[in-house]
């Protein structure tokens, strides 16, 4: 009977704790949001399943979880903590992203810069709550509203917070349609919301090929720490736009992107073992993350209004809110919100410009933090 006791002792039932049950419920909610509500399913579904798997208890000593040296899940998790998966995901995203809208309206780039105030404001906020410099930077980056950027920076500066930061980032990205509209209503007048913008010009192939090269060079010169993220994003985009490497762009944007997404999301989910996840720090991170999204939205909206003071051709300040990135959700929120006030005012393409600029802006911000704190 010795053996059967040993086996029963190793079952999850024997080691289950309240925290595990709570986290399993959290994972179930994530899966529910992904499957039924269709919120970011490509990320929330594997994350949610990972949260459940990561919270099945087992006898300590068995090499099973992401934190156990030599386990399979720890090998996958190494792709996250080493910072490898996020740039590879950016490579794939670059191979799928069209920067035409940004090229045709360069001044929208500034809106993508303004929204990064959310990052730095939250960094200050996190310092106030007593987090260290490196931790505060990683928490602030949640406001960048780019999953890979958040995970990359956390893996470099505060790996111990990677789980909650990633979950917070993806949760709020899923909730962008809930978070942004009230702020848009609060900070714009009805007249502003009805401003129409000229259709963007058509960009040539030359411009689309030169764009990733130039962006990569300048972003990396200004903030070398952004080299990994911006470099890979722009490599993917160059593969797509060059017109001579379609097969590479296709594989980068399908197989590579999908495989890295599955493994990263699942491993991040697994890393939320209740023992390391359920504490006051995580709560603080979730609160700061929400703050970060809100400050970023406000920053984009107000900066757009500021620009209008100087511009002859007024821009619709709503597109400032798209500067937070969360591509392409926040651009869709803008489109939807504007349609509410003028049925024929389609801002989607205009909002895409600050939207993708925000991705570059957050990557530069991450680069700055890496340069200072590493």
């Amino acid at each position: 009977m010795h053996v059967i006791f040993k086996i029963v002792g190793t079952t999850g039932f024997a080691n289950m704790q309240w925290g595990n049950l709570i986290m399993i419920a959290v994972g179930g909610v994530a899966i529910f949001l992904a499957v039924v509500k269709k919120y970011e399913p490509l990320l929330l579904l594997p994350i949610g399943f990972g949260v459940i798997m990561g919270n099945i208890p087992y006898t300590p000593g068995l090499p099973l979880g992401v934190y156990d040296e030599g386990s399979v899940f720890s090998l996958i998790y190494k792709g996250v903590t080493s910072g490898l998966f996020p740039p590879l995901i950016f490579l794939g995203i670059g191979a799928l992203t069209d920067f035409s809208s940004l090229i045709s309206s360069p001044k929208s780039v500034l809106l993508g810069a303004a929204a990064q105030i959310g990052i730095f404001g939250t960094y200050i906020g996190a310092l106030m709550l007593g987090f260290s410099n490196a931790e505060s930077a990683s928490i602030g980056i949640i406001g960048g509203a780019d999953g890979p950027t958040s995970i990359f920076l956390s893996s470099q500066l505060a790996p111990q917070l990677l789980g909650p930061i990633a979950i917070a980032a993806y949760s709020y990205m899923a909730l962008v349609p809930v978070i942004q509209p009230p702020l848009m209503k609060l900070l714009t007048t009805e007249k502003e919301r009805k401003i129409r913008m000229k259709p963007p010009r058509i960009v040539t192939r030359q411009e689309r090929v030169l764009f990733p090269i130039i962006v990569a060079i300048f972003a990396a010169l200004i903030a070398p720490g952004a080299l990994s993220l911006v470099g890979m994003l722009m490599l993917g985009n160059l593969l797509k736009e060059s017109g001579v490497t379609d097969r590479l762009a296709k594989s980068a944007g399908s197989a590579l992107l999908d495989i890295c997404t599955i493994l990263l999301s699942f491993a991040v989910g697994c890393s939320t073992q209740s023992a390391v996840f359920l504490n006051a720090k995580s709560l603080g991170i979730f609160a700061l993350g929400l703050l970060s999204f809100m400050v970023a939205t406000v920053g984009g909206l107000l900066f757009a209004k500021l620009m209008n003071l100087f511009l002859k051709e007024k821009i619709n300040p709503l597109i400032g809110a798209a500067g937070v990135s969360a591509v392409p959700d926040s651009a869709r929120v803008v489109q939807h919100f504007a349609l509410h006030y003028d049925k024929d005012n389609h801002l989607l393409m205009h909002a895409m410009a600050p939207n993708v600029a925000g991705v570059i802006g957050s990557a530069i911000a991450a680069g700055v933090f890496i340069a200072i704190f590493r």
Partner: protein
Amino acid sequence: MLENVVANNGLNTAFSGMTIVFSGLVIIALAIHSFNYISAFVKKRGEANTAAGPAGETTPALAFMGKDLVPEDELVAISVAIELYRRLHFEHLQSEITFVHGELTNSGWKTGIKYGQRRSIPR
């Protein structure tokens, strides 16, 4: 020969292992079995609000599996050919995150369905 079995507590291990395997699968079987009630319940509710239910449940894909109704006249062939043509030619576009001058193409990448967009990879 048997002394190695005894020394390694082999019968005990084998018996316990077999017990665990059976327990695990019995629990799973019971869980699945409870599905039948859920399924029956869902069906009953579905019969209540007749029209709405089936549309939601039977996805197009399932419809094909069940019946395999492939239209066989010329008209269909033409429309199918066109559909395929677009699918192959626009395959790349379908997975783009953003937009190409007036073409609204979504990616399924970070996509909600709150604002009327359709899923980009319709398969």
